[in-house]
């Protein structure tokens, strides 16, 4: 009797401590999500909204600009995320080497890009890749180019610069996750493998990657999520141009809400489309990579 009373008391305190946080999460996260969903069921301009059911969602499939922006973002995703994660993994393995001198400095340097703001890093890349920027000067100087490329006004090169910028900015961030994961792997495993005659690459593929699987899964989901919501870099570097060749979905939402005659209902539907894509992709990734 006394014991169950104590348990109940502990539970009660537990709930009391949880309530404020839960309340904040509800007000700041769930309430906006619910009202955004309700908004996505309405159509009209400005504040003249009326209920339209799922019409906005049907419109998505007829919207050539939305579909182009999805195509752009998927291109970034498919090219950038694997390259970045591989880079991060290799860097983390190198940094984890106990014999490496000056590890602290290297770790700081690799993480440093994450401390810069998205807009300022994009501004720096914009000036690096401008017509008279350092990239063109260098490439023309060593004879790789006969004349400067207008990187940011060319549909393909502009995508290349965007991918480069995101990779520079986020590789260090993912490296930190892998480093933390690597430090949880017992050194004895590697030692045993070495005694058995496993090469460094064999160790990487047979020990590091399988044991890091949960972390790799986490970073893949986070990067996918981040890339689908890409905004700052594209807006700063190219503003979606040339034409809409680099437009991201988030920037299209911005355009629908603030550049054009505001269609908040439709813009909310587009943002829910991102949510669905993130959910589906994460589900697939968990199914494919999550088996223990």
């Amino acid at each position, binding site marked *: 009797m006394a014991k169950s009373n104590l348990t109940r008391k502990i539970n*009660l*305190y537990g709930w*009391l401590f949880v*309530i*404020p946080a839960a*309340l904040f999460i509800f007000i700041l996260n769930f309430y906006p999500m619910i009202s955004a969903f309700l908004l996505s069921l309405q*159509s*009209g*301009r*400005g*504040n003249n909204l009326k209920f*339209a059911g799922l019409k906005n969602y049907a*419109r998505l499939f*007829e*919207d*050539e*600009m939305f579909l182009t922006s999805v195509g752009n973002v998927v291109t970034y995703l498919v090219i950038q995320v694997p390259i970045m994660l591989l880079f991060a993994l290799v860097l983390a393995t190198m940094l984890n080497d106990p014999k490496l001198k000056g590890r602290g400095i290297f770790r700081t340097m690799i993480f440093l890009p994450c401390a810069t703001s998205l807009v300022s890093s994009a501004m720096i890349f*914009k000036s690096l890749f*401008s*017509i008279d920027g350092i990239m063109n000067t260098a490439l023309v100087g060593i004879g790789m180019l006969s004349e400067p490329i*207008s990187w*940011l*006004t060319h*549909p393909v090169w502009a995508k290349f610069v965007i991918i480069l910028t995101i990779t520079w900015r986020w590789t260090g961030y993912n490296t930190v996750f892998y480093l933390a994961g690597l430090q949880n792997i017992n050194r004895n495993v590697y030692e045993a493998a070495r005694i058995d005659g496993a090469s460094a690459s064999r160790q990487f593929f047979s020990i590091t990657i399988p044991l890091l699987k949960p972390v790799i899964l986490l970073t893949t989901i986070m990067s996918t999520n981040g890339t689908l919501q890409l905004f700052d870099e594209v807006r700063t570097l*190219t*503003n979606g*141009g*040339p*034409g*809409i*060749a680099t437009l991201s979905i988030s920037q299209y939402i911005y*355009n629908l*809400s*603030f*550049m*054009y*005659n*505001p*269609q*908040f209902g439709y813009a909310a539907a587009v943002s829910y489309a991102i949510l669905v894509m993130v959910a589906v992709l994460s589900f697939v990734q968990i199914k494919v990579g999550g088996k223990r």
Partner: protein
Amino acid sequence: MKKMLYVLLVLVLGSTMLFAGGAEEKKAEVVDPNAPITLTVWCWDPMFNIYAMEEAAKIYKDIKPNVTINVVETPWNDLQQKLITSLSANATENLPDIILMQDNAIQKNVMTYPEAYVPLNGKIDLSQFAQFKVDVGTIDGNHYGVPFDNGATGTFLRRDIVEKAGLKVSDFNDITWERFIELGKIVKQKTGVSMISTVANEPDFPMLMLQSAGTWMFNEDGSAYIKDNPVLKEALRITKEMVESGVCLLVPDWNAYIATLNNGTVASTINGCWISGSIQAEESQKGLWAVANTPRFANISSSVNYSSQGGSGWMVMANSKYPDVAIDFLAKTFGGSVALYETILPTSGAIATWLPAAESPVYATPIEFFGGQKIYEDLVGFAGKVPNVKYGVFNYEARDAIARALSEVMQGTDIDAALGTAQKNVEFLMSE
């Protein structure tokens, strides 16, 4: 049990803090004509409209010493975003009393939120302003905007470069775009300098070409007129030819564009006359510039040598506590003070659309920077001949679609196909 009570107490206190505010009672306004009043104004250019607004504030201070003008520098894109956010959230207490609005955005904003702006009908004498500017701010018969700066376009030329190529400034007056390209090729060949530059992602040339022919991207009934619009087709064709022939240099953004003017990379620019402020910022080029009118189409009969690009107007917000004071302020400064325009013209190049100001002798002063040409007199003359067009509610949608069509045409897409896509996309955005 005592601990429980404490926890509850903390929770209750916490939640009251969370939901505090909003319960303050509104005090009744005390009507005192001499009580201090502050009017907040949003505009964006320190060299230009902010400066003009501050000068206007000084003038009004002499008339009504109790009124203070508080100018908040707000870049146009931010202004538009803040406006839409506040109006759609019904949080108008954050908005200022007066805003400056781009001409091509007035229709969109007023039609989406008609209650947000005060109609000025009869309170300001708009007959004293250039008619095309008044029309821009007139929606359903209500006048919303006090026209401010003039967007009349001109060809701003580097006198020295043109003469080095064996040409005269007068060769650029009353010409067609074809002739402009020919002259540009001569300049490029003889001096190695590109004739003109433009921002790669912006459809600035097609837009000013459209207005020079009195055409826009919409029909009378408001429907999109992009596909099979002969003026638009011709505008894209000429813009492409200018770039491909090397006459026009494409630059990635606005700063790079201004740099091409200031560092002598190009021999000219064609833009709204407000560009003269940026040109004159480069003092080492004093005396080297000149102004001619804008090229026209050779094979479109409605086309003239005059157009407009940019331009803006002041609007009074309905959320203002003192709308009458705000209107009176605008009426006695931008709509009634020759002295104001005389002050702001020489330093900022803010060319008035208030006609009485154009009679001021300041406008007839030869400008040393432009080699003694009376450019303001010339530009005011151009302004009077600009064809009138209705920018329409969906101007930004259409403009974006043309920007994209232009970039596709540059990459080799057929003009008709690119305009077909543009028409489709604009129609999609116009539907609900």
